[in-house]
């Protein structure tokens, strides 16, 4: 026996997956079933009472999904995880465990446009209030904490400009406030950044992006760091109070440091219902096996493209944290030293019209509203992902009218540069 522990790539291939008990199948089988038979009435009662390990119904858990859950929990360094239907579903399920009407979530202003919409409109209808703070001004988080604050929500690498968040500084504010820090790690993936190592209590993902990586399956993941004391001060009754539907068990007392993931499953997923299809779980798992290889190639390509664009006469600015002199370059060296990710923005001297022309002249880049695909993608945030924000909010979230967002794929970088060059000249 040696003291060497398996590394990230080994975990990306193996964690959670062992040859199937009944058939010996080496790849993870797709358990495309709604339900699972019980051994007997006692077994059924044990499962329904959360007393035994096992499966009941795919809305609550599924063996294919469980492999994905353990895989991502292992990669992130968490105690447990829960797979759900999308990144948005992950956010609702997480906050449902923490928030009551009148409570407040404190969120970074730089978020995916869809998250800004979800927080501003859908959550408002639940009676959940949102306070916004600027991740470039750490003090703004501190000033925004109130007695109603129940969680702080940030992105590790923030959409759309690929800016890097000072996770440790915001984690310190969350600790002082006695609330969990939730980090959306979609754009970094655990290959680049492991937010739990920097103080995150909960990590969420749109697994649709780099985890799955092939632009073919929606999915979301919630990872429990096992770090937060949910019973303290009775601020989180979903976890600390007896649950009448489960014979009065207290989730934190019974499940210890993976209580939050269990609450998300047996209270959130059970009642809200956004279960992930086992087929999608299989596709995302297959993607994760090559995450380290793909992510490095994404980053290396993105850096080459960013360097090319920053020297181009038609370009007025490039926001890529991997470039020396970028305002986030120091944070990138600290938090994401293997690369700055593959999503970034740049501005064109020709403004809005030049952005529209560029998008229509590109031949290899696909114009669509996704990121983290093997294929290179382009979008004009002001007219698409961020179009529902007002002009001031667009600028604040990094989606000004002259800004174009790229998600760099894993093609040959020379082909990507040539395509951008011809489109900028056209």
């Amino acid at each position, binding site marked *: 026996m040696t003291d060497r*522990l398996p590394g990230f790539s080994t*975990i990306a291939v193996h964690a959670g997956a062992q*040859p199937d008990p009944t058939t010996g199948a080496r790849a993870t089988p797709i358990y495309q079933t709604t339900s699972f038979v019980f051994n007997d009435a006692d077994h059924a009662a044990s499962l329904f009472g959360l007393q035994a390990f096992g499966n009941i119904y795919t809305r609550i858990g599924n063996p294919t999904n*469980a492999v994905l859950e353990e895989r991502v929990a*292992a990669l992130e360094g*968490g105690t447990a995880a829960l797979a759900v239907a999308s990144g948005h579903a992950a956010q609702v399920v997480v906050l449902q465990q923490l928030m009551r009407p009148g409570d407040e979530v404190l969120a970074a202003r730089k978020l995916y446009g869809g998250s800004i919409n979800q927080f501003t409109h859908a959550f408002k209808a639940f009676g959940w209030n949102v306070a916004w703070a600027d991740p470039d001004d750490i003090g703004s988080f501190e000033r925004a904490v109130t007695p109603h604050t129940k969680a702080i929500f940030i992105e590790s690498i923030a959409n759309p400009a690929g800016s890097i968040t000072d996770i440790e500084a915001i984690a310190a504010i969350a600790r002082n406030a006695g609330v969990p820090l939730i980090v959306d790690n979609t754009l970094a993936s655990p290959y680049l950044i492991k937010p739990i190592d920097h103080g995150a209590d909960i990590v969420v993902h749109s697994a649709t992006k780099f985890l799955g990586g092939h632009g073919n399956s929606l999915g979301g993941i919630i990872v429990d760091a096992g770090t937060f004391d949910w019973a303290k001060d009775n601020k989180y009754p979903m976890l600390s109070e007896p649950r009448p539907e489960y*014979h009065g068990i207290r989730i934190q007392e019974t499940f210890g440091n993976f209580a939050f993931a269990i609450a998300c499953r047996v209270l959130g997923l059970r009642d809200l219902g956004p279960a992930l299809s086992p087929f999608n779980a299989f596709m995302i798992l297959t993607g994760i096996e090559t995450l380290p290889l793909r992510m490095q190639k994404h980053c290396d390509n993105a850096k080459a493209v960013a360097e090319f664009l920053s020297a181009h006469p038609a370009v007025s600015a490039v926001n890529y944290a991997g470039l020396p002199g970028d305002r986030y370059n120091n944070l990138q060296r600290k938090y994401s030293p293997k690369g700055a990710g593959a999503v970034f923005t740049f501005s064109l001297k020709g403004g809005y019209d030049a952005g529209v022309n560029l998008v229509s002249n590109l031949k290899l880049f696909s114009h669509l509203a996704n990121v983290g695909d093997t294929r290179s993608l382009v979008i004009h945030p002001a007219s698409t992902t961020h179009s529902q924000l007002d002009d001031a909010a667009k600028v604040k979230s990094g989606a000004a009218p002259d800004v174009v967002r790229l998600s760099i794929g894993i093609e040959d970088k020379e082909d990507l540069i040539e395509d951008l060059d011809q489109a900028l000249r056209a």
Partner: protein
Amino acid sequence: MNHDAYDDNYIRSILNGVKSIAMVGASPVNVRPSYFAFKYLAQRGYDMIPVNPGHVGKTLMGKPFVASLADIGRPIDMIDIFRNSSHIMPVVEEALKLSPPPRVIWMQLGARDDAAAEKAEAAGLKVVMNRCPKIEYGRLSSEISWMGVNSRTLSAKRAPVPTQGMRLSLNRTSFGGGQTAASDRAAKNKTEST
């Protein structure tokens, strides 16, 4: 002995090594965590003895309750204490009077008494605090993976189909000692602040 983080091999050696477990504070109420931890360990082949003076005359999974450790009347390998931290010391003192004494004192999830641990260790016993043997067995065997829990172990061997009374292999490759690094840190901070 560091009781903030346990190496998987330490937990593995205990769970592989003990055969009989006396559970102090076992409950006959089938929705209590002590009941279903008892039931699981019995299903995994351990010789379980319920200890609770309030339930003498009743049985748990067919095993009669005894009032105290002294009443068991035969050697036992491990004592699993399902009591609050403030009730640990008397149980440990009682255990140390047994002849022969048990080899392991295990304090349940949420229970920790460092003075009692020190006393047991000074007498040559192994101690685990603030853990659940059901969770640890489920984790090291990967049975707990059904719930999306990170077992922190890997295996390329075919998984067993667990049946009644079946002992599962706990000898998978670990990729982290103790809890996860972050949860170890949190547990340590919590201990220091209380």
